[in-house]
């Protein structure tokens, strides 16, 4: 027989063997296909360009101030594409996808061990009639190889679907940035890792049955895993439940945070200024002429807008200020009693954002000053700082009346007020609090600016045309409506919801894998307890008691998983909070809901084992061995 014929024949035999163990084979292929199919697209997400700036022209802040900018004004502008928050979010998603793949590998290991345990006697018998360890290894490797090919086909199909879904659901803000282009990392994690786990585990799990003492295995009535192997699989199942629970909680917290961004925060802001978050509208305007003429234009524009019927408040600011994104640089400030390492330092410095704001800007946003006041039309060489900046005064100095300078050689500005932190929501947000200083826009009038118009109690739509007309009449070179602030906030929060959805999908996949793992462990447990269950039954145990004893073991698995998951969930939430600072780490409803879902899944898995337990025939089981 030629080698090709022999190989074909062995492949046929391997196919038949897989056909005989089709339930196990399907479970294995599914575990690989699901994890790889989800991980592959996630690892294929790569930046292909900049995210569009939140406000048009933000990338050219320095140019906006051409011929008339404050000395030391920073040239580094944080846009979402440069923001570590976005990259960190992508990396987090990858980490979670890798976790899902790791769980799939654990499932593959558990299923392979389970399969090897079920076939232990068969393998021992094959060895008894002449199959050496090499032959057993070769046969198992062939079966694993065939199964791997099937799994990869399923994986490719799932990857196509999840890739298309990922692409279709990408939020507008990330659309130009994320491209589904698989690279080496994507193929390694999504494709190779789970398949390799199968190809390595399967032969290794089968080998002991062929190499070690054959006699006891052949004499046993049933193929069961040794206790150590059962414990390992139990630990794997607990790990899967813990991972699923952690991801579910993480996804829930993220979705809740994005929901809060769209509604709760707005509600909070509406409490301060009823019209702002829901109805305040945003316009991008280009001012005419040189700096003095631009200042005159902005002053006249604000005057016109304030006089418009239906307008509650109106103001202007450099692009992106309303979401806390702008130029960034080094700032020096006076702080007479501040100390650095125990040494008094009357002059200190910090890295901070700097913005230009018109009079009444924070009132228009609904952000009331915490201390002092905000800028007025007559202000020059004064500044307002935010709470994060105020923290640098170490609580020993009142910042009001102190001075701040942009860069090492710029002018000094007297601080007249402190306002709450304003920052962008969503995964494009800065990591942590960002100190900021606000200078008078009418002193340094930019080429373009954001105009915010609060329409009081009336809907914005009612005053839209009037606002447009007023901007045009003031002599704007260009004016473009940018929608309401609420729409802008929702747009910024969309990536957060998307990340939450992606995590939810990952959690679902891990949960599915956990269902496999828990049911395999529970069934193996029943197999191991066959005789014990038969004795209980023979002694008159009520079937309900047997059901309860099986379910109790499942419950222990869930509780152990939940104990681990609590720590895992806090870690996941903490990692997520780094990209979305407003997210809450503890939310009882989310934790309880996720636990309920995992319990339900574990219950379903245990019910499969309950069925097997109730199927134990005492007469047969007691006659065994």
């Amino acid at each position, binding site marked *: 027989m030629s080698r090709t014929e022999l190989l074909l024949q062995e492949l046929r035999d391997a196919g038949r063997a897989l056909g005989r163990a089709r339930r196990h084979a399907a479970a294995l292929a599914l575990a690989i296909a699901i994890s790889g199919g989800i991980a592959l697209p996630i690892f294929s997400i790569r930046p292909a360009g900049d995210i569009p700036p939140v406000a048009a022209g933000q990338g050219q802040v320095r140019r906006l101030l051409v011929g008339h900018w404050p000395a030391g004004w920073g040239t580094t502008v944080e846009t979402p594409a440069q923001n570590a928050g976005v990259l960190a979010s992508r990396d987090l998603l990858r980490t979670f996808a890798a976790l899902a793949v790791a769980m799939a590998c654990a499932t593959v290991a558990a299923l392979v061990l389970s399969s090897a345990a079920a076939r232990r006697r068969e393998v021992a018998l094959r060895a*008894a009639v002449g199959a050496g360890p090499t032959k057993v290894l070769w046969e198992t490797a062939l079966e694993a190889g065939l199964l791997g090919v099937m799994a990869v086909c399923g994986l490719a199909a799932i990857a196509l679907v999840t890739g298309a879904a990922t692409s279709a659901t990408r939020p507008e803000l990330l659309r130009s940035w994320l491209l589904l282009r698989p690279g080496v990392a994507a193929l390694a994690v999504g494709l190779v890792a789970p398949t390799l786990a199968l190809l390595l585990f399967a032969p290794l799990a089968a080998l002991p049955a062929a190499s070690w003492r054959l006699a006891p295995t052949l004499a046993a009535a049933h193929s069961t895993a040794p206790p150590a192997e059962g414990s390992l699989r139990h630990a794997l199942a607990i790990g899967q439940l813990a991972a699923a629970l952690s991801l579910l909680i993480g996804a829930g917290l993220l979705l809740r945070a994005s929901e809060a961004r769209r509604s709760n925060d707005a509600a909070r802001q509406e409490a301060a200024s009823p019209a702002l978050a829901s109805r305040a509208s945003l316009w991008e305007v280009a001012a005419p002429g040189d700096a003095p003429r631009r200042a005159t234009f902005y002053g006249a524009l604000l005057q016109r807008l304030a006089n418009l019927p239906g307008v509650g408040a109106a103001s202007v600011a450099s692009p992106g200020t309303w979401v806390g994104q702008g130029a960034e640089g080094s700032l020096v400030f006076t702080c007479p009693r501040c100390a650095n390492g125990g040494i008094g330092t009357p002059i200190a410095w910090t890295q901070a954002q700097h913005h230009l704001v018109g009079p009444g800007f924070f009132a228009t946003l609904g952000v009331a000053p915490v201390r002092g006041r905000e800028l007025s039309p007559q202000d020059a060489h004064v500044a307002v700082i935010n709470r994060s900046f105020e923290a640098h005064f170490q609580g020993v100095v009142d910042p009001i009346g102190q001075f701040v300078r942009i860069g090492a050689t710029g002018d000094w500005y007297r601080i007249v007020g402190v306002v709450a932190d304003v920052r962008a929501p969503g995964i494009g947000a800065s990591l942590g609090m960002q100190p900021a200083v606000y200078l008078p826009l009418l002193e340094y009038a930019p080429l373009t600016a954001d105009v915010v118009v609060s329409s009081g109690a009336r809907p914005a739509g009612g005053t839209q045309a009037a606002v447009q007309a007023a901007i045009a009449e003031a002599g704007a070179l260009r004016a473009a409506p940018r929608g309401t602030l609420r729409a802008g906030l929702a747009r910024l929060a969309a990536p957060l919801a998307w990340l939450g959805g992606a995590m939810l999908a990952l959690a679902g996949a891990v949960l599915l894998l956990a269902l496999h793992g828990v049911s395999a462990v529970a069934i193996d447990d029943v197999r191991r307890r066959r005789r014990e269950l038969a004795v209980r039954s023979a002694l008159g145990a009520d079937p309900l008691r047997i059901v309860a004893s099986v379910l109790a073991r499942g419950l222990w698995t869930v509780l152990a998983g939940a104990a681990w998951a609590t720590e895992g969930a806090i870690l996941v939430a903490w990692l997520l909070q780094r990209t979305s600072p407003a997210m809450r780490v503890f939310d009882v409803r989310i934790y309880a809901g996720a636990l309920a879902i995992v319990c339900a899944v574990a219950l379903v898995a245990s019910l499969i084992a309950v069925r097997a337990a109730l199927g134990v025939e005492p007469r047969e089981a007691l006659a065994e061995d």
Partner: protein
Amino acid sequence: MTPLIRLEGVGKVFRDGSLATRALSDIDLEIAPGEYVAVAGPSGCGKTTLLSLLGLLDRPSQGTYLLHGRATAQLSAGERARIRNRQIGFIFQSFNLIGDLSVGDNVALPLKYGGVRRGERRRRAAEALDRVGMIDRAEQFPAQLSGGQQQRVAVARAIVGRPPLLLADEPTGNLDSANGAAVIELIRELHVEGAAVVMVTHDPRYAGLADREIHLFDGRIVHDDRAPGSEGDVAH
């Protein structure tokens, strides 16, 4: 003549943590080619352990086991498998058929591992099944057969490779008397054709059919027909 099997001071100890159980002690035994030996003794006396050692399914804890004059202690797992495939046929008490394989495939399994071509395997498996009267069941699966039929298939599997040594562990233990007698008759026929048979049995009727009886008690041989002073002899 070189004995087919020679055991010198063989012992077997099973260890489970700190607990050691001595299953066999100081077994000295020679079995000639073509000999029909019955191993008897009470439960737990080490009969099955002895058969497992003879069949290279396990290794002795001490002593020497020579098969065809060749020491087996240093054999690799692959070499042991090759010897089991070519020189030994097993008949287990619990049949040990693979439930997912058809009767024909079960019988052909040793030939597959012996590298026999598929067509040849089928032909020889059919011959073996015909021999035990199960040819019409070749396409069925073990679960569809009675205990007696399953044991006959197991006998067919044991003889399909024409091994010089047949090891039978309580081959009638799970069978009624009619099926038991039929299987014993099959084994006797194989012996008549030249195979050496070592059969573990509880049943004195079947033990009496062998050329030689060995009795084990507490892991030691307490009676051997061929031992000095015994009257037993090898006879076909």
